[in-house]
């Protein structure tokens, strides 16, 4: 799973306190860099879908990159390359994603996050 997908995933435990289901905290991460083709147009179209603060803090916590405080309003090619590197070329191979609202742990194994819940959590 790439960081772009982490940027969109929320906890879906039924009893999770409202407003606290996002973001999921990544712990004990093993990362790998992907060799993904850069497409400036795609990155531009992705920007409105991003939660910039979360992308920034995640990239910082994982030691991937230091993104600017605010998302560039008129991104340069360098900005787009940077977002590409963080969101589309950084893959979480092994980790735990922990919900800070309810504490649910979503494990990531071989790059696949397990979003399944127990019956009592649905």
């Amino acid at each position, binding site marked *: 799973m790439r960081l772009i997908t982490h940027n*969109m*995933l929320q906890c879906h435990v039924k009893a999770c306190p409202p407003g606290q289901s996002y973001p999921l905290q990544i712990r004990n991460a093993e990362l790998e860099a992907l060799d993904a083709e850069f497409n400036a*147009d795609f990155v531009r179209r992705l920007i409105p879908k991003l939660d910039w603060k979360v992308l920034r803090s995640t990239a910082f916590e994982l030691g991937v990159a230091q993104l600017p405080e605010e998302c560039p309003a008129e991104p340069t090619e360098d900005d787009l390359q940077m977002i590409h590197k963080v969101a589309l070329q950084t893959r979480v191979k092994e980790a735990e994603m922990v919900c800070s609202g309810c504490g649910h742990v979503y494990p990531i194994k071989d790059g696949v996050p397990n979003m399944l819940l127990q019956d009592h959590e649905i």
Partner: protein
Amino acid sequence: MAQTNAAASEPTQHPTPDLSHLKHVDYRNIYEPAEDTFLFLDTLQKEREYINNLDPVICLEIGSGSGCVSVFLASLLAPYHALFLTTDINPAANRATLQTATANRIAIDALRADLLPALRSRIDALLFNPPYVPTPSAEVGSHSIVAAWAGGIDGREVIDRLLPLVSDALSERGVFYMVVVNENRPEELREVMNGFAFDMEVVMGKRAGNERLKILRLSRML
């Protein structure tokens, strides 16, 4: 954007994804692409311009199995890029989807999930080849290959769980394609989705053995 000259010079069949990395033994655990899968691919090819015109950013396939359909869609839309996500409840299918993506040089994130994950962003193109085969209810809910086909009563038990979620999951212009058979009573599905202010169109149909397959396209009423 849609490539108009490609539409003018059709019909050239877009190549089926390379699945040679999947062996006989893999198909004990995941659904092997069959007539229904290939009809779905043909439909997507026919719908290419429609999908491109939606300017999709996020595409998600539920129950991706081998990964054949999502990889096909990604390569069909290329050089146009989107984010391709897949879910499957079966971990062997998650693995196979990633292998198929890698083998075909397509980027996909596979999630182990029951139908849809909880996403902050809405989906522009949603695909589902559901377990549509009528079976006893007790066969529904497996995490193995049985989940690929066992649909319970009228083959509707999994489909009926998804339909109420579609409107919230899809973006304003979003589109949802789903494979069904006549036993699923497509006209009843139309009524259900009309209730959510969605239009339904049968965009493809074919008789394959004893299955009368249909591909539905659902989108918000204008």
